[in-house]
């Protein structure tokens, strides 16, 4: 059983936002909304400052509170790769999933349902990478099966220092950032 995840190399990401544009185009994300975004995270004291640039999105958590809190069964874990998805025609727009997400990765689509990154499952099921990964000009984004020790993402994680986001929230996020 595959467990899809992403590994993003923050030492290569330049914050060009190609991933953001690709997502909006591929998934027809409405104007003013984002399924993925860029975070510029600066730490330290001048002049010793360190900036990490990250491409962020839903972390497709292994312990997804957004799925557990959904009263309609709209938020669910897809049978393939543990991807967290939303059935639009089951969502009542109660917004519990939005409150439950520590990453604020979800939003209410103008049509009323909760929306978020799908890891481009429609592309992945045909053997392609998610749109954001496929357009990255610096090749800093990697998508694959985290359960397969020989996959590209697993090899990167075993060989490089990395961190997920807000690990302490206990959601077991499946996107890791190489540092």
């Amino acid at each position, binding site marked *: 059983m595959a467990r899809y995840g992403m590994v993003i190399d923050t030492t290569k990401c330049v914050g060009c936002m190609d991933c953001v544009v690709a997502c909006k185009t591929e998934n027809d994300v409405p104007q003013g909304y984002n399924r993925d975004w860029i*975070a510029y995270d600066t*730490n330290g004291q001048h002049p010793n400052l360190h900036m990490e640039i990250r491409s962020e999105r839903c972390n497709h958590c292994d312990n997804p509170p957004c799925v557990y809190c959904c*009263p309609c069964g709209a938020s669910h874990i897809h049978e393939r790769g543990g991807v967290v998805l939303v059935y639009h025609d*089951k969502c*009542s*727009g109660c*917004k519990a999933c939005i*409150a439950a997400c520590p990453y604020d990765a979800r939003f209410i689509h103008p049509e009323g*349902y909760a929306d978020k990154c799908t890891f481009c499952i429609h592309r992945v099921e045909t053997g392609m990478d998610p749109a954001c990964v496929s357009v990255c000009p610096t090749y800093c984004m990697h998508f694959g099966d985290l359960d397969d020790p020989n996959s590209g993402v697993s090899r990167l994680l075993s060989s490089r220092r990395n961190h997920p986001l807000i690990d302490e*929230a206990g959601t077991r996020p499946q996107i890791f950032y190489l540092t």
Partner: protein
Amino acid sequence: MHELTITRHNPAIDPTLHIWGWEISLYLFLGGLIAGMMMITGFFLSRQRFKEATCTCALVPLLSVVLLSIGMLALFLDLSHKLYVWRMYATFKPASPMSWGSWILLLVYPALIGAFLVRPPMYLTKRFAALRRWSAKLHTHPSRIRAVGILNMVLGAMLGIYTGILLSGFGARPLWNSPILAPLFLISGLSTAAALVHLFARDRDESEMLAKADNTFLTAELVSVVLLIIGLISSTKVHIQAAQLLLTGDYAPVFWVLVIGMGIIIPLIIQSLAVRHKVAHMPIAPIMVIIGGLILRFVIVEAGQVSHWTRAALLP
């Protein structure tokens, strides 16, 4: 320094979460109030004391049905995909507090109607013969009234606790993520319900009894608030910062003045003096309790959405 800039600007998400407005706060308040009224009515019914508690057993169930309908309308208004509201009743998700709540709300209606039938108002029984018949059926066995009373107490407790668990189940919002929130909302519901009956009761003994009960509830509510704060400030950095939103932050004036001062301490002092017959019973005290209960829900809902794992971590 630690600075985080993000390019995302999703409506109602950024810069701070604001997905739930007055509808949810009002609903949580009404849910707590109805829960409290059900428990108080249930108490009198289960002890066969419905004749001495006129207001509690005659007016309150009818008022609860009206308020519950207003609360459910507020919930419906909050939904952004309104035509799919029926999906909540097409499934039951045991891990979802909201799923529990939607089913509890559905069970509350028949329980309230049962309580209403114990002492339906005269002007209605004169007009509707069926009401008279159903009420008479309920009175054929005392055990039926006792059962209605117990059902109201149990469902009232479930409703009151659920309004707190609905928020405390969200680990992503540190201010809400406290097990004290459920008992706090239940006790606050009881205190506002006792205040409301105290306000409306024409019978002096009933009014006095409810004022005494309200004093106990207000004391317990104050203890619960203190426990909530202690729980947060003795936890992680993000929880401490969440508590600071109430203690010293943007929500502090409303929290200290309107929730703690006007909503609990001042009415507690007035009512304590009143039940000792040192001052006359004044409607201002229960009115303050009710307004304080409403503002408590608003403050917790609003401040809880501002509390956050990442943003809090950025503060010094």
